[in-house]
């Protein structure tokens, strides 16, 4: 579904070149639920923005759903974002000028979907996150957890195959975070591929697979987790 090989991303400013990602390799299979962890500034968000076609990369290859992404023009990238990818951001990123209903409608309109189908999908998605009764509310009138559920509804409404979430629970308390996590698990069970960046080890442990990024590179966890686990047990003892 999502395959990066020897991928690199360099941020150039006048004075410095920052390698946000270097020789970055990852292969996420269709239907997987992957949690991405790593220290702050390690390149997790950078990875996600490139994966989600929000940004271009400097070197290497990225195949999304079998398509070599670097060949695509801006319009084609917009279309893929719109049809195949759902985004969930740490800061929710709802449009403050639009009510809940209109927020969920945004990606559907860009897809050129007919009004009746839009309405059906919006109500289904809001139903799913338990906020159908708040359709006319504005984001500012909702709690953080509710806003994030609206954002999930917005990501879901277009039935994306790939869901990218950057610390979706980072701004939420434990209970709200659990609710969001349960929703993501449910969506995963229905067949979506999910890549989620998180700082929360508990949430990460609920994913099928953990990818650890340090200093812009994926660290192989097939060896290390056992090592860490072993250490942990030793420490416990």
């Amino acid at each position, binding site marked *: 579904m999502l395959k990066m090989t020897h991928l690199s991303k360099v941020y150039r400013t006048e004075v410095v070149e920052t390698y946000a990602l270097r020789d970055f390799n990852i292969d996420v299979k269709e239907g997987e639920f992957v949690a991405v962890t790593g220290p702050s500034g390690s390149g997790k*968000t950078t990875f*996600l*923005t490139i994966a*989600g*076609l*929000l*940004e271009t990369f400097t070197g290497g290859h990225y195949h999304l759903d079998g398509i070599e992404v670097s060949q695509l023009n*801006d*319009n084609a990238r*917009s*279309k893929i*974002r*719109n*049809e195949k990818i759902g*985004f969930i*951001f*740490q*800061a929710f*990123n709802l*449009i*403050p*000028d*639009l*009510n809940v209903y*209109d927020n969920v*409608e*945004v*990606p559907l*309109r*860009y*897809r050129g979907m007919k009004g009746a189908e839009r309405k059906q999908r919006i109500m289904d998605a809001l139903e799913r996150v338990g906020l159908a009764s708040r359709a006319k509310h*504005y984001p500012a009138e909702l709690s953080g957890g509710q806003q994030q559920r609206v954002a999930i509804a*917005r990501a879901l409404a*277009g039935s994306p195959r790939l869901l990218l979430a*950057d610390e979706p629970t980072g701004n939420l308390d434990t209970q709200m975070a659990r609710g969001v996590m349960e929703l993501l698990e449910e969506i995963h069970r229905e067949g979506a591929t999910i890549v989620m960046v998180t700082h929360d080890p508990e949430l990460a442990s609920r994913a099928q697979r953990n990818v650890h990024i340090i200093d812009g590179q994926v660290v192989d966890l097939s060896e290390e987790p056992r090592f860490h686990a072993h250490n942990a047990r030793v420490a416990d003892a």
Partner: protein
Amino acid sequence: MQIKPILAALKRHKAGTVLIALQIALTLAIVCNALFIIQQRVSKLVRPTGVAESEVLTVQNSWVGADDATAASRTKTDLLALRGMPGVRDASFSNSYPLRGGGMSLGVKTDPDVKKPITGATIYYSDDHSIDALGAKLIAGRNFLPQEIRWVGSNEFDAPAQVIISKALAHKVYPDGSALGKPIYLALGETGGKPSTVVGIVERLQVPWSGNWASNFVEYSVLVPYQSTGAFGSYIIRAKPGQLDALTKAVPALLFKTNRMRVIPAERGVRTFAQVRDEAYKSDRGMAILMGVVCAVLLAITAAGIVGLTSFWVGQRRKQIGVRRALGATKHDILSYFLTENLLIGAGGVIVGAALAIGMNLWLVSHFEMERLSLLYVVVGVVALLLLGQGAVLAPAMKASRVPPVEATRSV
């Protein structure tokens, strides 16, 4: 396409929206009326007088120390001298001429027993040279005969036996086109009076006044076969082709050589007809230019307001533009969002503005000499302002479309 959500979002930005819409409305109202005034002034400016304007020189003359008899004989001498000049085609003497600014007017009737004249008309004292000197075109009947010309004192006007009138006046008093040979009555008393037979019709001859109040009878002229024995009058001198410039110096020189007992005012005493026209329409031209400047300034302010507000909104909405891009909006979608938004604000503005424009015109009509605004001006103004809005919004909208999708992930 996405009108509903744009309107929904605008509701959350009422102040800016209303401000710009009002600015558009006021601009439309003022620009429509100003353009209408400009058009009216300009159409006046280009109105033909019936005079061979590029060949005519006018000289304002007043005799010093002359009674009626000597004034008449001096004027006759002048005319002979002028007509004898090598560069002169013909010359005549009159109380006034088109666009001069001052002149004489009388009511005109076809029935002497009716009190109310059909219309007012100007009276030009003329002789058998006048039509040729003015360069007017006789289209029916005949010129005055030399023996028909009478020298009269300035206060002893009575109805002449023959008159030559302008075509416009002929059609006004005899709408069936049968004026030639018919009598008209110059309204000197309430009723009664002697008939004046229309012996000739000239194609066009404007009155001396260029003000709006004269627009009802701007081409109603009557040539009477009188020459004034008064001290004041104007020579109308028609130059041979290419001789006009030379005559502006030669004519006053010759006149003073012929008789020094005269005053030709230093200002406006000797004027080519081009100067006459220029001076007659000075205030109209000034008004048109002022209105034009007002329009340009207003349009520029409105455009600047739109650019300013949209730029501000684009800056304010960078994040949500990034989010929209992340959710699948193309650059074109973002561009068209801002263009559509502007069009909606503009539509609100021009609806109010069109009503204001018509209201403002009705007020001008009732308080000043203004005509009713043609709806075409409103339509053109509406289209122009909508286009202005789209043009003004283009640069900030392009800037918005270049906000990268990754902006969605940047923390505020």
